């Protein structure tokens, strides 16, 4: 074994046997005797005055235990917290409208819960929803972003008197002056829409109030069990120690499983306390389209000022952002757009202004990428258009503008979502671009393959784009490492896990310090009884923040092991080595196992030194000063069927930099999944609302997730610029793959269509491409 036998290796996952055999426990797999089942009555209208709710017939139905409306909640009814207050940006306007547990006198989006039925079975509960009579007086609906800001628009939150959720300007340098010096200015309008997270497991909650011990246990499909525990305790008037929140195995998260609070999350525990029975609610797929947050449209008006060589002098971007009906996440999504737009480039002057707008639609919160897609699309498209106008190769224009390694840390002089200055910690963008160009065969494609294909009447196109991703933000996470008398290691941390492989990667980090096998490190995560401090899994931060805490705790335990062993073996610590679960005196047969040391560290008799702590255990916390910047380049070759405009991807290349790789197999898997999500966003997925705010495609039959035949084989390579901001040198990777795909599609399709159309929007589809081609032909 080398110094780091596990970190960096593609070790098999510890969690797989459980998952593969069907033994892993997801929320809906928890069965408690006497459980009641809840179903929610949801608004059919996007906007309306709630005049009355008559639940009397529902209450009479056999098997129904209770029905609750907003009235029944008493003091428990109140607006939820503002989860992410906006950063302190000068001149910022921010209007808060946070969720309510059940609509009281107004409904503001389709699917907003109005009443909840609790019954002996879910079947009965759903029957009883039909018995409820609701009277809603429809109000004019706010759907479009520009319309929402019109002076005569209906206002969604009357107390605010406006549909403006936020207005933010961030700038550096002097864009207008730079524009004056420019050789060329390209300006365009863009629209970028996104859709659902689409975790295959829907949300769910099981709450069990034990009236005898006065303890509440909640199994919740949350990415953030500890904040949920803290919030529930506060709202229910319980001590935090009376509330245990468990996020067991989760069937994917991708952002929306991190909310505070979803109405169901607040109500199910409350009902369990009222009824003193376990109560379960499992979302169905149709509900998830309305009741689980998603991401959506931004409209940009942007311009790029360059010199005659294509060097960026400045960027200006003014955009509208759809917040949906409430804004519990503050400005997280649009500020990500604003910050990520700058990409890997040197942008001396930047003016960015956005207005976030309330609409009568499902709430927008981060979904894998969290607004970064929109920004990357705008910047990459502007560079493409500038390159074309100046006659510069598109790879070349990017290379000319990349930040170089000597420019790090690079301060962009604006604030990021975590309120810290947007400073890139490290990166090396040129080699990634060169590698991607080489892997995709950039020159050969342009010089030989594409002309040859064109001569045969085939439409082949290539795209190549780059992006950065701010990852691994604070505030902090913790980890507790303990060596048990069996010699096995227990590792507890607070973040939830949704398939990222934390049971393995965290174990790898600890195994290296303690000289044990990865399979001997048992990871517990997402159970507030096991670890009580932390925030959650979001913003590509698990491995960076929690991983670093695991590392720090393991280092402390390693020291304790060596100190106890030095006494036991009567040898200097420097003469000891730790491997294969034992401490050995170098060059001798003298050794002692970790298990024996754990026993010695926790004696039953005798005296211990003053101040000594028992056991081989340590808890550490890690809080990075700010996020760490990952980056990448994606390239692809597509072929478009000239008749149907069906697009097939022939090659897909990713060169990614997330610093040091803890487990390259898992990292590549994260990238694959991200790219697939990005492909869905670019070409398959769209939430189609009508002018009444009705979602027209709320099922997997009508809203298309990409399938195995839609996602191509991906060739993934890495460059590694370690982060200086954490001891492992890692950067986050969870969202990366999804971020540049829209920009990539646009460039590749434009190329395949030989510049017949200019693509300024996402998502696309064969039908939409057809329209664009027709429009372009009509124009010319």
């Amino acid at each position, binding site marked *: 074994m080398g110094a780091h036998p596990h970190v960096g290796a593609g070790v098999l996952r510890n969690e797989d046997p459980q998952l593969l055999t069907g033994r892993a426990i997801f929320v809906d797999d928890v069965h408690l005797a006497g459980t009641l089942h809840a179903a929610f009555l949801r608004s059919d209208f996007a906007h309306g005055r709630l005049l009355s709710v008559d639940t009397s017939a529902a209450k009479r139905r056999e098997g129904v235990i209770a029905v609750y409306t907003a009235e029944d909640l008493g003091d428990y009814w109140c607006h939820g917290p503002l989860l992410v207050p906006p950063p302190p940006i000068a001149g910022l306007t921010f209007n808060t409208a946070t969720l309510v547990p059940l609509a009281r006198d107004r409904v503001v989006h389709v699917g907003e819960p109005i009443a909840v039925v609790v019954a002996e079975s879910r079947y009965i509960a759903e029957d009883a929803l039909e018995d409820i009579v609701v009277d809603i007086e429809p109000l004019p609906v706010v759907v479009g972003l520009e319309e929402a800001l019109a002076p005569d628009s209906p206002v969604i939150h009357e107390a605010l008197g406006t549909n403006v959720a936020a207005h933010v300007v961030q700038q550096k340098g002097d864009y207008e002056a730079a524009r004056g010096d420019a050789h060329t200015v390209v300006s365009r309008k863009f629209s970028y829409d996104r859709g659902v997270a689409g975790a295959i497991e829907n949300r769910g909650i099981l709450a069990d109030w034990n009236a005898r011990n006065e303890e509440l246990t909640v199994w919740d499909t949350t990415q953030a069990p500890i904040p949920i525990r803290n919030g529930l305790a506060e709202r229910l008037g319980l001590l935090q120690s009376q509330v245990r929140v468990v996020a067991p195995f989760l069937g994917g998260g991708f952002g929306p499983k991190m909310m505070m609070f979803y109405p169901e999350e607040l109500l199910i525990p409350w009902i369990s306390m009222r009824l003193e029975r376990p109560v379960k609610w499992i979302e169905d797929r149709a509900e998830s389209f309305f009741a689980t947050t998603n991401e959506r449209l931004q409209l940009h008006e942007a311009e790029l000022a360059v010199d005659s060589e294509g060097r960026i002098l400045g960027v200006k971007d003014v955009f509208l952002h759809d917040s949906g009906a409430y804004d519990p996440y503050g400005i997280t999504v649009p500020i990500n757009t604003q910050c990520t737009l700058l990409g890997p480039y040197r942008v001396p002057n930047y003016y960015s202004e956005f207005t976030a707008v309330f609409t009568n639609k499902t709430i927008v919160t981060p979904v894998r990428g969290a607004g970064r897609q929109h920004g990357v699309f705008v910047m990459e498209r502007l560079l493409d258009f500038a390159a074309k106008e100046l006659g510069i190769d598109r790879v070349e224009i990017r290379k000319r503008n990349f930040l170089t390694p000597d420019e790090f840390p690079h301060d962009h002089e604006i604030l990021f979502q975590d309120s810290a200055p947007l400073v890139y910690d490290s990166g090396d963008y040129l080699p990634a671009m060169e590698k991607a160009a080489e892997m995709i065969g950039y020159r050969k494609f342009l010089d030989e393959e594409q002309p040859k294909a064109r001569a045969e009447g085939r439409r082949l196109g290539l795209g190549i784009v780059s992006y950065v991703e701010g990852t691994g933000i604070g505030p902090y996470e913790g980890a507790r490492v303990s060596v048990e008398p069996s010699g096995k290691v227990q590792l507890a941390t607070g973040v939830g896990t949704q398939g990222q492989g934390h049971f393995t990667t965290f174990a790898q980090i600890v195994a290296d310090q303690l000289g044990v096998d990865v399979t001997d490190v048992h990871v517990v995560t997402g159970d507030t009884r096991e670890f009580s401090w932390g925030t959650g899994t979001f913003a590509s931060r698990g491995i960076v923040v929690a991983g670093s805490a695991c590392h720090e705790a393991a280092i402390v335990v390693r020291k304790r092991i060596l100190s106890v062993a030095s006494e036991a073996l009567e040898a200097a610590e420097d003469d000891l080595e730790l491997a294969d679960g034992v401490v050995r005196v170098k060059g001798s047969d003298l050794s002692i196992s970790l298990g024996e040391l754990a026993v010695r560290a926790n004696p039953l008799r005798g005296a211990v030194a003053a101040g000594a702590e028992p056991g081989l255990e340590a808890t550490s916390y890690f809080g990075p000063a700010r996020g760490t910047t990952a980056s990448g380049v994606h390239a692809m070759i597509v072929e478009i069927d000239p008749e149907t405009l069906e697009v097939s991807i022939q090659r897909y290349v990713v060169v990614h930099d997330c610093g040091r790789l803890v487990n390259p197999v898992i990292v590549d898997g994260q990238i694959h*999944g991200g790219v697939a999500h990005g492909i869905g966003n670019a070409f398959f997925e769209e939430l189609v609302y009508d002018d009444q705010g009705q979602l027209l495609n709320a099922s997997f039959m009508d809203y298309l997730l990409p399938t195995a035949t839609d996602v191509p084989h991906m060739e993934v390579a890495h460059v590694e610029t370690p982060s200086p901001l954490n001891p492992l040198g890692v950067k986050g990777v969870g969202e990366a793959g999804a971020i540049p795909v829209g920009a990539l599609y646009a460039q590749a399709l434009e190329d395949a269509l030989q510049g017949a159309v200019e693509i300024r929007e996402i998502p696309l589809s064969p039908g939409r491409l057809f329209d664009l081609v027709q429009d372009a032909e009509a124009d010319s």
Partner: protein
Amino acid sequence: MEVTLTVNGVEHRADVEPRLLLSDFLRHGLELTGTHVGCEHGVCGACTVLMDGAAVRSCLVFAVQADGCELATVEGLAPGGDELHPIQDAFREAHGLQCGFCTPGILMTLVPFLRENPDPSEAEVRAALSGNLCRCTGYQNIVAATRLAASKLREVEV
């Protein structure tokens, strides 16, 4: 209504409502929760089980329709103890799962597929899996795992 059916070789007799979905019966009636539910409208494939040897979506079948049938679920796949079925082994080796929620449905889809197609091409595997949604993996390692599974199964057969 009374139903009698066999699941993973064990006979079960139960009195069920005619409208009870087979997926709910397996998961909540028999507490065989390895079979997952992702859409309840027949698209995602997470609920796939074998009914008399054929892969079916248990969310599209009523429990009463399974009366007299032999069912197999993911719980019955591994031979027992710590040992995994060759398909399960291949999924672990090739990192063919992340959250694992889609996995049981995919495994059960592959059992009859690999029986009939012992040496499938990548395109054949992708087509066979096109009715199973996975949001985590981008399918690449699932495809690789399936082809690895095929080779493992071929070795077992020989």
